């Protein structure tokens, strides 16, 4: 495996010497996510060659794996031991890798209660823009030695370095799960989801779409049963397939070929009046907006900002609009400075996150 790292280092050094863009690529399942590169990459760094589980101790609740390991393989192994990635990451295809999952920083239905990708990153090994092999964080739950560079990599879309290995906190799978379904309007659903989140209930996911609220309960058998009696509603059959279709965006709402906006907002924000259709997750904190015309980027971004959040053009289908919410100039300065420090020649995934990163 060291040979592969040396190959990566050689690629990086060559790109850095020539100041030519280098695109980091795993399974390619999240290729759609982010801005198109400013210029055609001169070379690709394929992370799938560097794969495999490095260490997994179920009783330590920690797994360390190489970035090229397929996300599906990671989940199969965890399932064998009754454990899971609690942030429920979307795969968007069989080829999805663990490295891509961390770099994209996307989390699924359980995020509002369990936490996001970054919350489970304990440490990682990465190559910076000069090819240096670095390790940050560790394989233990609590670690405050040095700045939290590991979590900084979650969602950085590979613009700061090549993730080689990552250590994640894993959690036991809940023994029981039930999904309840309720009919109600948007405003009531938002209020209900937030009220329930403030009560000691085992709610592990929420989704509101087409006038129906879906609430997943997870935990001990007895807890789920009691909560079900308390909340009422209809039991949704085949609920696992339902949540998977939300996570993987194969549910009917997610029309292929249409622009899809992701609005991350204060969960209690009143319904946002916009053309197109909406689907809510995370107790109302995540609002997907789908529609083919009449969607104005400026209006969407302003609305999201007004309710404490930001908007991402999640699937842009080749539109030239910037994908990510523009940053204030003071924050952008810090971003540029960090990029400069980690990747001084500006070779990694240039332009994918913001034009000059």
């Amino acid at each position, binding site marked *: 495996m060291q040979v592969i790292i040396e190959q990566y280092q050689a690629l990086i050094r060559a790109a850095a010497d020539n100041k030519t863009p280098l695109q980091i690529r795993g399974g390619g399942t999240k290729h759609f996510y982010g801005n198109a590169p400013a210029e055609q990459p001169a070379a690709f760094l394929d992370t799938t060659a560097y794969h495999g589980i490095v260490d997994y101790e179920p009783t330590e609740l920690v797994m360390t794996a190489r970035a090229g390991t397929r996300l599906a393989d990671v989940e199969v192994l965890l399932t064998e031991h009754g454990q899971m990635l609690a942030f429920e990451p979307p795969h968007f295809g069989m080829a999805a890798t663990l490295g891509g999952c961390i770099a994209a920083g996307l989390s699924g239905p359980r995020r509002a209660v369990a936490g996001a990708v970054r919350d489970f990153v304990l440490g990682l090994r990465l190559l910076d823009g000069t090819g240096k092999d670095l390790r940050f964080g560790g394989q233990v739950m609590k670690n405050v030695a040095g700045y939290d560079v590991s979590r900084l990599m979650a969602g950085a879309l590979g613009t700061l370095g090549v993730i080689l290995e990552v250590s994640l906190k894993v959690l036991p799978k809940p023994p029981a799960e039930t999904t309840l379904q309720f009919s109600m309007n948007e405003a009531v659903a938002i209020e209900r989801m937030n009220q329930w989140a403030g009560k000691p209930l085992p709610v592990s996911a929420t989704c509101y779409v087409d006038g129906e609220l879906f609430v997943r309960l997870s935990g001990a058998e*007895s807890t789920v049963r009691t909560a079900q009696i308390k909340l009422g509603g209809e039991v949704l059959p085949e609920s696992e397939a339902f949540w998977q279709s939300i996570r993987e965006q194969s549910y009917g709402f997610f029309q292929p070929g249409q622009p899809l906006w992701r609005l991350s907002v204060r969960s209690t924000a009143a319904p946002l009046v916009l053309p197109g259709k909406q689907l809510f997750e995370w107790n109302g904190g995540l609002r997907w907006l789908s529609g083919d015309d009449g969607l104005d980027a400026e209006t969407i971004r302003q609305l999201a900002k007004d309710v404490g959040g930001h908007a991402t053009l999640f699937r842009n289908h080749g539109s030239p609009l910037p994908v990510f919410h523009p940053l204030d100039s003071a924050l952008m300065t810090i971003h540029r400075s960090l990029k400069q420090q980690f990747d001084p020649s500006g070779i990694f995934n240039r332009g994918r996150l913001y034009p000059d990163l």
Partner: protein
Amino acid sequence: MSVQTLVDQFRSFLPREAILFEAEDLRPYECDGLSAYRQLPGAVVLPQTEEQIVKILQLCHATRTPLVARGAGTGLSGGALPHAQGVLMSLAKLNKIIAIDPLARTARVQPGVRNLAISEAAALYGLYYAPDPSSQIACSIGGNVAENSGGVHCLKYGLTVHNILKLRVLTIEGECLEIGGDSLDSAGYDLLALMTGSEGMLGIVIEITVKLLPKPEKAQLVMTAFDDVLKAGNAVANVIAAGIIPAGMEMMDKITIHAVEEFLHAGYDLNAAAILLCESDGSAEEVADEIERIQAIMQQSGATGIRTSRDEAERLKLWAGRKAAFPAAGRVSPDYYCMDGTIPRKRLAEVLHGIDQLSQQYGLRCMNVFHAGDGNLHPLILYDANRPGELEKAEEFGGKILEMCIHAGGTITGEHGVGMEKINQMCIQFKTDELQIFHAVKAAFDPLGLLNPGKAVPTLHRCAELGAMHVHHGELKFADLPRF
């Protein structure tokens, strides 16, 4: 710039009582919770408004004056140790809970608000702020952010980094950054994670939005005695293997049990080699289920005695012993030095054995309390500062424990921070290239290095000198650095 000139300039925008510069007024600020390190600052300022803080920062920046921020001063790593030529800025007067939004389950607070005060204010809505460092009655939320503080419940509920949404931060230039948001994520790099635990080196946090959680319906505690530390360690692994994430899982060794029992009479078994406290919380049914399973696991793991709290009073009494471990150390010894390593739990027996050997070697007793669920070990080295050389011996002993934690695959600090105290061990945990990245991160926020200089990340020069003194496994650390 002389202190007098600085003070004169401070007077143009701060009230008289908010500026301290006489030695006797500075004295209370000479150390934080790590009293072995003391240093008087040039001056202390106690601003009350954001506007004042901006001016203080701009003045320090313009005059190239080092600035150290301080919350409640309860930190255990010397992170708030003043700089001799610098200004110490206390944020204690910014102590308002600005707003609580019960439906959104968030609280917006100023940095000087005490950790426990947030939970007290949120109790009205059946909510609380989960991270509960042992000093929660006194420590400030700003300090918690600076250190990424944990507590006994963090295996289940996470550290500070998992429980905050947004920060308002002032840079050393006095510019305001909004980091994070009211939403669960924000655009761009995760600067919220980078700021948390950055020990006041990157910016001054002036407002924090924390997440609040619903208070669990019920909590119950199982106390188990073991005749062998290894069995207690295995019991912890067995609980996790059964798919249980306890709300709290704490271990104490024999010497701690004795010190605590003598002090508090909590009802601990004095014959035990280790005591494990395992808490379950949640709905009534969930707790009943889990407690039953925990009891069975303890039995199978070779417990010599099991006691389960029957009511809230008994639960608190059993916890009281664990919470009194530090004061108990203070009773059995004139001074104690608290360490904070984290190790993979499976290496516990080996590390405890190593600590025992070091204890004999240095002729100093050591009590061990352990956040067993997450592998965070707090050895308390007992010493007497009045005996010449004993503090130095305790420090050396502590340093050796931390090195052992690194070699066991762990870290030198789980929750107390590096501060001034563990700066040398940073040279062992990280390579030159990694330390350089830390310096680069610092430079991205504070290019002149004025915020809390000399803390958290050692200079490469310091590591080179240290490397010359300590050679590990025959390999010289930082061999690639020039020596002078």
